[in-house]
């Protein structure tokens, strides 16, 4: 186990290192004349790497604030959305994944799930907003009017927070149920399920102690993919519901060619995915090798 964790930690480190280099390359574009030729670009890149080592991240073109401060102000909202999304994803995606993970239910559910999953995130967000406005008469922050805050102070703010969280969560749920169903399908093909039952272990014993850990391990191993889905959905949700999060900063930075801010957000997002992958892989390994309690 230790060797595995060290191996994965090495991969995480290499990934973060690569992400930092990539971010520095993007940030180098903000240096004057960096795009004039390869040599200029390499010099600018080297400069940005040096800045990174010395923890100098520059200022945002949008607000004029240091990028670190800008990120510190906006990132919590994005992370909050992602965490809320994880909760919704777990509450919705895990039951669907198990219910429709095997047998005839899986075959019947697959087309239906495809129909639901065919909706792009922004469409899902708009549908949720329409439903909230028309049926529940909630104030909807589609075109401004209601600000989204991480810690709502009143009912209006709380209602406004629900929609982006739900949008992100449903996208995450799609990824979670896919990972679970894939994992359940793999576990269903294992010969040892059949032989352990023949050796006398009750079905529920085999499923609980051996199959479920494997299925959950499959979900954990896909944590990186789930995180990708959540971050992507968060970017869209922030735009749809006018949230001033890190993804919104990214979109505006690209539009205004603020490459330093763009690079910072990119690095953070890549880092989140890589860390999720690392945690997921280690968790999966731990779950499968721990075995059932005696």
């Amino acid at each position, binding site marked *: 186990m230790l060797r595995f964790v060290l191996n994965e930690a090495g991969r995480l480190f290499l990934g973060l290192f690569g992400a930092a280099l990539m971010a520095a390359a993007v940030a180098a574009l903000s240096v004057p004349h960096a795009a004039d030729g390869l040599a200029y670009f390499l010099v600018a890149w080297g400069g940005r790497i040096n800045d990174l080592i010395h923890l100098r991240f520059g200022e945002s073109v949008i607000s004029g604030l240091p990028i670190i401060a800008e990120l510190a102000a906006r990132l919590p909202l994005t992370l909050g959305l992602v965490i809320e999304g994880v909760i919704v994803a777990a509450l919705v995606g895990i039951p669907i994944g198990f219910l429709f993970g095997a047998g005839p239910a899986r075959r019947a559910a697959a087309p239906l799930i495809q129909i639901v999953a065919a909706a792009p995130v922004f469409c899902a967000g708009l549908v949720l907003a329409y439903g909230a406005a028309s049926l529940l008469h909630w104030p909807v922050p589609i075109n401004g009017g209601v600000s989204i805050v991480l810690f709502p102070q009143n009912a209006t703010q709380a209602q406004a927070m629900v929609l982006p969280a739900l949008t992100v969560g449903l996208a995450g749920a799609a990824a979670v149920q896919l990972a679970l169903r894939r994992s359940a399908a793999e576990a269903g093909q*294992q*010969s*040892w*399920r*059949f*032989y*352990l039952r*023949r*050796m*006398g*272990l*009750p079905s529920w*014993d085999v499923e609980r*102690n*051996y199959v479920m850990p*494997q299925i959950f391990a499959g979900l954990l191993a896909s944590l990186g993919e789930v995180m990708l889905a959540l971050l992507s959905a968060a970017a869209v949700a922030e735009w749809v519901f006018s949230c001033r999060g890190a993804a919104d900063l990214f979109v505006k930075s690209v539009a205004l060619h603020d490459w330093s801010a763009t690079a910072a957000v990119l690095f953070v997002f890549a880092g989140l995915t890589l860390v999720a992958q690392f945690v997921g892989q280690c968790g999966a390994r731990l779950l*499968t*090798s721990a*075995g*059932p309690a*005696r």
Partner: protein
Amino acid sequence: MRSRRLLDIKDLRVSRASTIELDGVSLTLDAGEALVILGDGSSGKDALLRIIGNFSDRGQEATGTIQFGDGEARPAHKRGRSNLRTTYLASARVAPLNPHVSVVSQLTRVVANGLGVPGSSASEDLRLALERLAPALPFAALSKKSGEMRDDELAWAMLAAAVAQTPDLLIADHAFSGLTPTAVAALAGALADAQKRQGFGLAYFAEALQTAAHLRCRTIVLRQGKVIEEGDFEKLAGGQSHAYTKTLFKALPRLSEVTALRGNSRGEPLLQVQGLDLSPRGKKPSSASDAISFELRRGAALALVGEEGSGRRALVRALLGLQRFARGRVVLDQVDMGILSAAMTSRLRRRIAFVTGSDAALDPRMTLWDTVDEPLRAHLHLPRDMIAGYRETALKRVGLASHAAGSVVATLSGFDKRRLQVARAIVSAPFLCVIDEPLRGLDAFAQSIMIELLTELRKQEGPAFLLITADMRVAQALADDAIIFKQGKLVERGPLAEIMRAPKDDETKKLLAAAAPSRGPEPPAAPATIAAKPASQQAPVSPDELDPPILLDEPIADESAVTESPG
């Protein structure tokens, strides 16, 4: 005093969809009695196993009656609780345990469930059972995962778990299939001893006769759902009445009376090995006497015989340049392999063919035709019509010409895959054929056909054979000379006839004895050791199930270990 009746099946008929699996089978089994049920894949023995084991199967319909122990006879289609403590012993080669969890954890759970005791108690029972059955295998070895254990070690562990549950009835489902003859002999002996000691009934289901030859008990032969033969093994081996049973016993190579020496003086030397030292690099070189030297001439056949882990495959990997060696020289086709570049080595290897007992040796994605075509297309760049001609000839020779061109390798049976390897070898026109446990996992008839095909290959294409096997009968059928290995060292060598007539080393004697089970009761045996008898006292041998061959040193993934799919 009549033993307690454990099983009484009357007029059992089992069908699934429109297929009749069993047609009017009746049998009994008493406590302390062993019964071997023999048959191929379509014989219906799997259906009988399900009924005896009380395993559910939604798709089957059953009529007839079944009585377990003192219980009431009930209709076969009704599943009810059996009052017998029944344990099931699977083959180690079908991946019967979760590969991510330790073997001891799972088997302890099985024992605890079977006995209805806590885990700690079950663990102790398992440990004691293992100690009694296989004192050479430490209990700590079971802490590994199943993929990290050798097949024979796993088989011992599973046998210990089955026996630890003090069953009334033990159902063995091809339990020792695919293991080396020595391992089978030891395991079968231990199982027989445990049965005598504990007095349980044993129902052993098998496709081939080797285990039956060791158990030497009442045997039932099933064919197409019917019992075609029943009686003591001795009687069946001596003078079987049914034509099918006769063919079953005759089908496999026997360790026959020693024949005249077959010469090795065929052609020029093809392979010359001088002072080869297989010690890992960086380690202290082994002594000069441990270095390996031998010669293989063109058209000759040399068998490398030994148990798993004896060093045969490491030697072959070194000969083919797949593994580095500390010292020595390998000359193949008059070329020193040590000085060749990777590209030249690759070119030289085009004249080498493999026929192995590993189903994973063929790319499962490829089609039948593509598998045969590939060497012709890749190495010789022949036109399509020529390739088609060679392909057709090769497939006809191995009996695969009637298969659809687009048949994917993954969908072929083990026997078909084996024959496909021979077809691919035929078109390669090799000067050297490496044959690695070619009969593994095949039933009796398939094994005899494989021997014929390989003999024919050698006759027609004339390659030299380098045979890797743990079975002296296969060595005798295919090779002229042999080198016996034990723990990485060469312990005996020479013409096979000479070795069989007068074996010198204990390892040789052990391998010979495992290839020919004695007539009398087997003495209790520790793992990997059995009592050997001189070849002259050995009974006519019975067909074989061989150990899993893997040319590569690393344990391969579960894919190749799974040879049966659950129902």
